[in-house]
């Protein structure tokens, strides 16, 4: 312990009281640095989660004290609230459409960009730009207008004989407008795919080419397995984010989940229950089910990943 170079690794338990004191002294400054984060975790994450769990078993309207109702919020939600299930269905449909579409576009364009030498930086930035703007209210309003009755997309489709009368006002199509807006922002996962593609050693492709593998075969046997950890990373992140979509759903639905509740996403319904109808207990129960659902989906993704994600150097 005399020189800094021979300090033990963090896991070593100090032996003597003197060493223990030295260890504690070393921990001190760390906790000073960590204090804002620790405060945030306790006050704004852990305590709220506990409170939210408690509230989910109560009736609470912000004014009168919470009234304990046991599991009633949950049983109402699951058995007596068709709007709830509708919002679950809308959100699941959205996740299942938006995430694969977005990732497929991201991977496709990343593959096109990989071998490009000219203007690569320009393309990368240009494809990335929608990811920065896409979450804004402005762009959501643009999409609402483009897919409205008489909007550009409607007119384009009409000119080839498909009459939709506007996707935004069609209960079967409105959710896809939100999904397409999400897919439009494929630049963010694309940049991550590009970084992943650069990590694949060139000699793998040379070896595959020598063995007579064509472009398709090289893609399936080299690119996909080598890229699978990145695919997995993007899949988990995009899935988690998609469950929480709010702004575009709010804007495209006109703020009320319309038409005919077809775009009442889970988060929109949660907002309506909690902040418009002042059923904070019910909304808390919804929040906890969302938390558990996202946890479960992530867990399932991790479980299945064992069979399709390939790590070139295990343990690294």
């Amino acid at each position, binding site marked *: 312990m005399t020189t800094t170079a021979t300090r033990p690794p963090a896991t070593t338990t100090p032996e003597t009281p003197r060493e223990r004191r030295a260890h504690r002294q070393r921990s001190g400054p760390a906790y000073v640095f960590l204090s804002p984060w620790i405060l945030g*975790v306790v*006050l704004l994450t852990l305590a709220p*989660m506990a409170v939210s769990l408690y509230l989910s078993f109560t009736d609470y309207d912000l004014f009168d004290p919470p009234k304990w109702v046991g599991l009633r919020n949950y049983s109402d939600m699951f058995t007596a609230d068709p709007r709830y299930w509708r919002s679950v269905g809308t959100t699941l449909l959205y996740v299942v459409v938006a995430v694969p579409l977005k990732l497929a576009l991201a991977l496709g364009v990343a593959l096109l960009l990989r071998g490009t030498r000219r203007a690569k930086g320009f393309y990368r930035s240009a494809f990335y730009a929608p990811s920065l703007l896409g979450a804004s209210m402005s762009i959501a309003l643009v999409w609402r207008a483009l897919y409205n009755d008489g909007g550009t997309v409607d007119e384009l489709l009409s000119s080839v004989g498909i009459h939709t009368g506007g996707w935004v006002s069609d209960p079967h199509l409105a959710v896809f407008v939100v999904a397409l807006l999400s897919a439009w922002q494929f630049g963010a996962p694309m940049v991550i795919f590009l970084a992943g593609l650069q990590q694949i050693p060139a000699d793998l492709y040379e070896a595959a080419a020598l063995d007579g593998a064509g472009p398709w075969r090289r893609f399936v046997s080299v690119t996909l397995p080598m890229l699978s950890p990145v695919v997995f990373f993007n899949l988990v992140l995009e899935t988690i984010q998609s469950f929480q979509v709010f702004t575009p759903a709010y804007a495209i639905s006109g*703020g009320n989940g319309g038409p005919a509740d077809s775009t009442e996403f889970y988060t929109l319904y949660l907002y309506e229950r909690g902040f418009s109808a002042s059923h904070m207990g019910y909304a808390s129960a919804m929040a906890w089910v969302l938390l558990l659902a996202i946890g479960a989906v992530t867990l399932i993704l991790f479980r299945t990943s064992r069979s399709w994600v390939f790590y070139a150097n295990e343990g690294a």
Partner: protein
Amino acid sequence: MATTVSNLKTTANRARTAAVAKHVGLLAVLLVLLYPLAWLLATSLKPADEVLTSLKLLPSHLEWSNYTTALDGISGVSVTRLLLNSLLISVGSVIGNVISCSLAAYAFARLRFRMRGPMFGFMIATMMLPHHAVLIPQYIIFNKLGMVDTYWPLILPKFLATEAFFVFLIVQFMRGLPRELDEAARIDGCGPFRIFWSVVLPLTRPALITTAIFTFIWSWNDFFTQLIYLFDPEKFTITLALRNFVDQSSTSAYGPMFAMSVISIVPIVLFFFAFQRYLVQGMATSGLKG
């Protein structure tokens, strides 16, 4: 010999054709991708009668009055005021995130302390936590503190490093810095605070810039939190002002509405052009999402 040369030529030609086809493909995708932005800009300058009757992208003449109408703002609050409110929240958030996240990141990256492993794991786990799980109790807390309809609920959490993404980003960056520098400073008698301030922090600049840019853009685009906490139109942000157009289905207000939309994304576009190099690099190295 002649055949080899012609073969080489064919191969070169084929490679060139493939490259050209690739660029054509990329540009075609780009055109579709950027069309909504061009449409936004064009519509913001269109006279009211051209919005629906003409499919042409470009307006017949530039209708600047859309912008003068937009500048009036909504419910008596000028656009300047709305932009300043947005700016206040975004800049406050940037300051909070840069300070609190770099402090926490330094501890995780460089200092040894009890429970370091579990705490780091917990920090990573909070990145996955849906915002909605803590939303209602946070609202109740801020309500009890009398902070609803102020900017505190929007800015204060940033000073407590609640956006774990950025802690993680800065940790990853700090781990890449040579430890010899810390050791040298320690031998010279510097304590952890001095090392943090004088050695590590200056070198972490790129990660801090990435944090600042993303925090700015995310807070600028944020709608949900502002919707919940802000009620007084005087305190509205530009995003909340745009919400007034959401339930209007008539196209008569398109000009001023999209003029205001353009105004609202100008700061993001400026940020993007000024820092795009850092942005895309930061994205690629950290796996952050926009």
